[in-house]
Every structure is written in C-alpha cells, then in structure tokens.
C-alpha cells in the first residue's frame, strides 16, 4: 500500500444559515425532522447508541460518537461495507449559525471497493480506470 493510498479522505460542507443553533439542533436530532431532509432513522442523541438511516437505495448503519447539545454531534456512517464518521458543528454567527458538516474516514484505496460494492461491476471499474490511465499516458 502506498502512502497516498492510506490517506484519509474528508468531505466538508459549510453553510451560513439564518436560524439559531437551537433550532438547527432539533432538525439534526429529532427523527421526525431528520426524515424530512436526510432519511428515516431511529436516531437519539445518546453516546454509543446504534441506529440506522433508511433510504430508497439502502440503509446506513450508524453509532453515535459524541453529543454536545447545540454545538456538535458526530456519528459513524457505515455504508457499502465502508465506515466513515460524520461530524456536525454549529457555531453562532451574526447571521444565525455557521453549520459545518465533515465526513472523514474513507481511505483512498477503499475507493475502488466502494464503487464495486455500489455497482456490482468492480472489474469493469478497474478496466475503465486502466483505460483512462492508458488514455492519459497516451495523450
């Protein structure tokens, strides 16, 4: 395994939202509100609680890692045989709240396994990656 392949991958989405943290916290933690924007779940903001998000396309196995009311919430996010951690951070701002979502934990070398699990045509992806690499080196 190369060093680059072992690196963790992170996705960050940040947004200024014109509502106070308390209100956003409700939408992040109450199942009847969560299902309106994310997915159906049996979530409860209790450390170590295991829960499942269910979507049309499948389900995500989760466990609550940390809860700091109105400030931060993190849970594991296991889907397609790979696990990552989703962390929500809420900070009061002049406009209302600075909301930050960070998802981290996937290694670069798991990428291919993830795609394979998703499509069930892992070998084809490998072939395509090879074709693309060949095209690029030819260019």
């Amino acid at each position: 395994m190369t060093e680059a392949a072992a690196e963790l991958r992170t996705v960050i989405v940040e947004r200024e939202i014109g509502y106070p943290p308390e209100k956003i916290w409700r939408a992040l933690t109450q199942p009847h509100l969560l299902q309106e924007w994310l997915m159906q779940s049996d979530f409860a903001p209790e450390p170590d609680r295991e829960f499942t998000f269910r979507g049309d396309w499948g389900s995500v196995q989760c466990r609550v890692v940390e809860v700091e009311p109105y400030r931060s919430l993190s849970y594991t996010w296991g889907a397609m045989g790979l696990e990552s951690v989703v962390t929500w951070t809420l900070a009061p701002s002049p406009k209302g709240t600075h909301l930050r979502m960070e998802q981290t934990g996937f290694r670069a070398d798991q990428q291919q396994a993830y795609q394979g699990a998703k499509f069930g045509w892992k070998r084809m992806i490998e072939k395509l990656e090879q074709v693309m690499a060949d095209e690029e080196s030819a260019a």
Partner: protein
Amino acid sequence: MPTAQDMLFRTLADPTRRAIFERLCRMGGQTVAALTAEAGVSQPAVSKHLGVLKRAGLVRDRHQGRQTHYSAEVKALRPLLDWTSEMAGFWAKRIDMLEDLLKRMDQ
C-alpha cells in the same frame, strides 16, 4: 454535480444499456448493426439505448457514409470514480433540504 451523477447512475442502471456500453469500452467503435447482433434486442431498441447513453455523455457517434459508428466516452464516468465529490454533492443537496425544512418549522 449530483445531477450529473444521478444521470450516470440512471443511465447505467439498465442492464442492456450497460452491456452495450461495456461492449463499446471493450471493443472500441461499433456500428448499430454490430451492437444489435450482440445485444439480443431489436435494432430500434439498441438505437434508443444509444440515444440515452449519448445524452448522458457516455458515447459519441460518428457518421461514415450510411453507417453510424458509436464509441465509449469513458471519461464521462470520472464523476462516479471520485468519492469525495459524490459525497459533497450528497450533503450539499441534503443541507438545501434542511434549510427548506427550517423555513417550514418557522410557521
């Protein structure tokens, strides 16, 4: 963008269409007639699948006399190979929905 990925997912979800695309990846440029011989469906059906693949940017066509040659645009799959851009698109869309919900919660 998530919409581009949605389109690729939808386009390749159909097994016949995926088989046509795989064949083009494997064999290079093919005519509709050659693809029909392998596909196990009628020529109009193959043409329809090729049209969908073309709209998704997965194939390009080249006219040569009365024949049309199709070839795969494997680069169009790049968004699917990038996990981080896919998840970023997922969360951006979900947070849009969260904002909509927050507006409704006000009432």
